[in-house]
């Protein structure tokens, strides 16, 4: 019935790739055919931690995830080499649902990694039109700009070191004013996603956003990651529709730390 790997599967790292400053990809052998873009894995670093990671590469032979070095666990991952072993369970969560013909995808920071397999999937479907916006703080942190063929990609950086100078959300509003989109899909910092959802509300465009919350069980049991009326980011999400997010008062404002206490975003 359940399709996911429930008990951590141990895999050897097949390849690691530096994508940008402090950003790396880890790839390993696994048949990704049943994975939906937007789903995530729980990556076990034995002896250290287990953390959620979106799947950034999906094909029939290997899958991978792309991460920024931010703390202990991601630093440990950053230092791993080909042949080292990690565990994973999953895929967990719902993943994105592609709707309509003309689609705008907006990624900010490592959110780009989450959107990458979605972009590949949209590009593989006939009669879809795709525009993508990738935002980063600065040029050094931008990645995946050359990964996709035949994509209409726009870039923004906060400091203007490459592409549009400003926030990805500003560029989004600019583009939405110029073109009619059937759907907007976004993943990135929550403040950015909140702005994009608000813009889509204004322009009445269906929107999906992929959220991050502190994940413990990853299987919808412990309640650690709940938002709104008991929506579990790990199971009912991480992707939510705009009209669901509109009812969640904490979206863009609060999350919960590992103790369950509310903290500002």
């Amino acid at each position, binding site marked *: 019935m359940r399709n996911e790997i429930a008990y951590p599967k141990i895999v050897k790292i097949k390849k690691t790739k530096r994508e940008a400053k402090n950003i790396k990809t880890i790839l390993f052998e696994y048949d990704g055919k049943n994975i939906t873009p937007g789903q995530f894995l729980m990556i076990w670093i034995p002896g250290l931690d287990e953390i959620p990671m979106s799947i950034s590469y999906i094909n029939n032979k290997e899958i991978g995830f792309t991460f920024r070095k931010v703390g202990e666990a991601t630093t440990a991952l950053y230092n791993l080499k080909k042949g080292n072993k990690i565990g994973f369970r999953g895929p967990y969560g719902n993943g994105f649902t592609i709707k309509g013909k003309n689609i705008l995808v907006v990624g900010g920071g490592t959110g780009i990694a989450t959107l990458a397999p979605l972009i590949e999937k949209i590009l593989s479907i006939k009669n879809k039109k795709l525009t993508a916006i990738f935002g980063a703080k600065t040029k050094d942190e931008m990645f995946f700009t050359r990964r996709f063929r035949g994509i209409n990609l726009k870039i923004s950086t906060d400091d203007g070191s490459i592409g549009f100078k400003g926030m990805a959300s500003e560029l989004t509003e600019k583009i939405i004013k110029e073109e009619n989109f059937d759907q907007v899909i976004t993943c990135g910092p929550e403040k950015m996603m909140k702005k994009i959802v608000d813009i889509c509300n204004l322009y009445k465009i269906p929107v999906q956003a992929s959220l991050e919350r502190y994940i413990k069980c990853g299987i*919808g049991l412990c309640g650690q990651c*709940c938002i709104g009326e*008991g*929506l579990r980011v790990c199971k009912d999400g991480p992707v939510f529709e705009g009209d669901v997010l509109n009812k969640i008062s904490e979206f863009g404002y609060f999350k919960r*730390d590992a*103790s369950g*206490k509310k903290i500002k975003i």
Partner: protein
Amino acid sequence: MNRLIDTSTKISSLILKNPFILASGIMDEDAGSMIRIAKNGAAAIVTKSIGVKPREGYANPTIVEVDCGIINSMGLPNPGIDAYMEEIESIKKKTSVPIIGSIFGKDEKEFCLLAKKMETYGVDAIELNLSCPHAKGYGLEIGSNPKKVENIASKVKSSVNIPIFAKLSPNVTDIVEIAKSAKKGGADAITAINSVKAMKIDIEIGLPVLSNKIGGYSGKAIKPIGIRCVYEISKNVDIPVIGVGGILTAEDAIEYLMAGASAVQIGSAVYYRDVNIFDKLDNELKGWMKKYGYKKLSELIGLAHKKQRKVII
């Protein structure tokens, strides 16, 4: 047709529309989740176990699925009793389903402080977590000592005006002795069982999977242990028992009821059968009762103690 079947029950002064209560630690750290569970048909909700101060719990991995169940060592993460006021108050605004505040402390003082605050926030009963198998200085470390159990029960009892339930662990030599102490102290009901001390080692890595190494085993595998505990307690201690441990189906719940439980709690099955399990269980229960000619839940409760050597059935 099922409307003629009455599955309501009661534990002390709590009236429950059906016997299915959400167990502590399952989607019950925040108001929103508990409201969702209430809307899905749970007759009552036990909150996450709350302590005096915020606690992050153990590092991940905090949970691992094994062949016949789940082993967790969350480490009692909770936002602390003060932050919890907001959660209880907002549930109480949105649902009339009874809320049972689960608390853990290192001594009777902490338990009393927590119980009083919970009562002020508006919970309908208190569940004393005397049984968490993996938190140093808490839970089982207190709950395996009959004197401490009696003392905590009696101090909490005299501090609040709502019923108190003692949640016990199977990881003791004699659970009946502990249950008797809890009753002596004034507990209005016993909840049994908490998860069973267990470990999973990954042989490819050569390490225990959980960061805390030892965790609590829940799910299908532990049902026969829970049934035995409930049977022994209800045979020897004259207060209501709430059965918990490995209930996935109505049949599992009926087994607990027949063993002597007046109601049951659902934990890991929220994973196995998802959040809408509560309505499903009540329907399955009613269907079963109809098929076998039972009309009221009370006919099932303790049945396994009543029928003895009844050869012709």
